[in-house]
């Protein structure tokens, strides 16, 4: 892999509330290569969004990055001062949020919201910025772009609003785009359009994209690599094809078993993963997935497994017993 555009190393983020410290992210590491699209999957509370908000340093007031580094273009984002960080946001690193209904300011025209981003980061006149906004609207295929600049967010449909968000994010040619569940709040028919638009733009503009989602179908279609998160940690990461063909972590296997396969006509039921995610105010000492894992061993509860070539599971240990079937473990 070439020199990564973003390299997250041992990121730790916590939130402090009356309940005490909630360790939302507990030592996450991953790389993003220039022009690459990676997917971060995990269920709600797995720490995937918090990871990205940490990279942008846009945590809520009670959140704090406790450790680790995020090297972007060779600079540690966590060591920049707030001014330098602001110069990066919306410029080199842009972000699209989940809900385009609430992420656009209802009292400003969409044009203004795009133009102000351009004016913030580029030395251009208002007219030039406006021209650029029209081009961006055309790029994301908003019909009659010039006229729609004057519209307010409530005058758009959900899909069109997400296109506005994308146009806004692309306005300063970011090297890295973080898309936090960009299709979750949209109608199913629109989801695919937006996803394909993102993929097309990523290829065309050659930017790196981190796609956060809980939808494996979304990931399979557009990303190159996957990072699977659970309990604030990376459970498994790897090439998208390898991971779908040979998932090594029981959590990844569980996620894949829970995805409907339309080509399968055996009519078997989807297999849910029993149990619920760990309480991050009191994270377990061992593997966070152990209480829900069909293959859990004593060792899993006792100690945190290290990453064995991309999978954080004791079963990957050379001396571990081999899983031959569901709930059947053969002595090594």
């Amino acid at each position, binding site marked *: 892999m070439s020199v990564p555009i973003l390299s997250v190393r041992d990121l730790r983020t916590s939130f402090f509330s009356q309940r005490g410290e909630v360790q939302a992210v507990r030592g996450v590491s991953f790389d993003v290569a220039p022009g690459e699209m990676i997917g971060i999957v995990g269920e709600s509370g797995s720490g995937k969004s918090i990871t990205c908000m940490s990279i942008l340093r*846009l945590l809520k007031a009670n959140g704090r990055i406790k450790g680790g580094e995020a090297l972007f273009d060779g600079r540690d984002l966590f060591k920049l001062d707030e001014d330098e960080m602001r110069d990066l*946001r919306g*410029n080199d690193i842009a972000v699209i949020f989940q809900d385009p209904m*609430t*992420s656009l300011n209802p*009292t400003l025209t969409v044009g203004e919201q795009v133009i102000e981003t351009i004016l913030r980061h580029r030395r251009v006149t208002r007219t030039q910025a406006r021209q650029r906004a029209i081009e961006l609207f055309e790029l994301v295929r908003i019909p009659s772009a010039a006229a729609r600049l004057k519209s307010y967010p*409530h005058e758009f449909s959900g899909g069109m609003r997400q296109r506005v968000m994308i146009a806004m994010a692309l306005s300063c040619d970011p090297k890295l785009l973080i898309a936090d569940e960009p299709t979750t709040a949209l109608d199913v028919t629109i989801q695919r359009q937006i996803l394909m638009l993102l993929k097309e733009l990523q290829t065309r503009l050659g930017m790196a994209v981190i796609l956060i989602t809980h939808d494996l179908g979304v990931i399979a279609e557009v990303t190159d690599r996957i990072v699977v998160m659970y309990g604030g940690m990376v459970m498994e990461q790897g090439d998208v094809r390898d991971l779908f063909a040979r998932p090594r972590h029981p959590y990844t296997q569980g996620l894949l078993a829970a995805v409907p396969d339309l080509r399968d006509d055996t009519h078997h039921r989807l297999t849910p993963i029993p149990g619920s995610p760990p309480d991050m105010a009191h994270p377990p000492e061992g593997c966070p997935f152990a209480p829900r894992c069909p293959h859990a061993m004593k060792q899993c509860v006792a100690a945190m497994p290290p990453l064995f070539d991309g999978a954080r599971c004791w079963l990957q240990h050379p001396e571990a017993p081999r899983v031959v079937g569901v709930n059947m473990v053969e002595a090594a």
Partner: protein
Amino acid sequence: MATYVIQRLGLMLLTLFAIVTLTFFLMHAVPGGPFVSERMLAPEIEASLNAKFGLSDPIWLQYLHYLRGIAMFDLGPSFKYPGVSVNQMIADGLPVTLRLGLLAVICVVALGVPMGIVAALNRNKWPDTGVMLLATMGVAIPSYVIATVLLYVFALKLGWVPTFGLDDWRGYILPVLALAGFWISFVARLSRSSLLETFEQDYMTTARAKGLRPGQVLFKHGLRNSLIPVVTVLGPVVANLVTGSFVIEQIFALPGIGRHFVLSITNRDYTAIMGITIFYAALLMVMILIVDLLYLWLDPRIKLSGQSA
């Protein structure tokens, strides 16, 4: 837009008509009259006075006469002050009342909103606690108590400002503060809670994620949205401040309309009561109309009926 304003003005006329009618008949339903007092007038003098002011006419005729006057912006003569018309009374008192009211409104906006901003930006830190303490006191303590305390401290003890009268600008300070105290506090609390709510909105995160500077985030994205509830109360506030100063006018002995209003009620000065009531009602409705128009500008989601989305 123009049609909307015209419609609203039409409705205002209807409302005014209802107010005139109600006030007129209610007032006449109360026993007594302007020329009934402790010192009994000779019956023939009272009768001739009544006749002179048309009070011996049947009540419907008096009503029609009054309506005709109003239609020509004539609120009639004062019964108590011979030779003075109600129009004149209002014109005499209005400048003082209006100046007092508008200064109070300016204070409410210019002090209340920034106080709210400071408190919200320093949530749970000392500036927040200080502002909220002050604002809670301002809401809880009635204006006449504030007025008296202010007078005692700043006029009597420190001698910085005069105790009464409006001979120079310093005379306005205490009345305006006493008048605006409640609403400054109210608006400070309202802007604080409204801003804090706005800070939680997703679009505020978007604004920061675009790399906008804190000032841009606060003023362009935050303030406008959080001012919407503030503007909502501003209409009644303006009306309240402009019309509600009669207690303050009494305490500081200021020659505004408020004093005439109170006196005219005790005097049963029919035309003066009617005139001032109508004038205040009209003022209130105009203020509410202005606020509604301001609203349209602040929040583009509000559409006028008849205008397509």
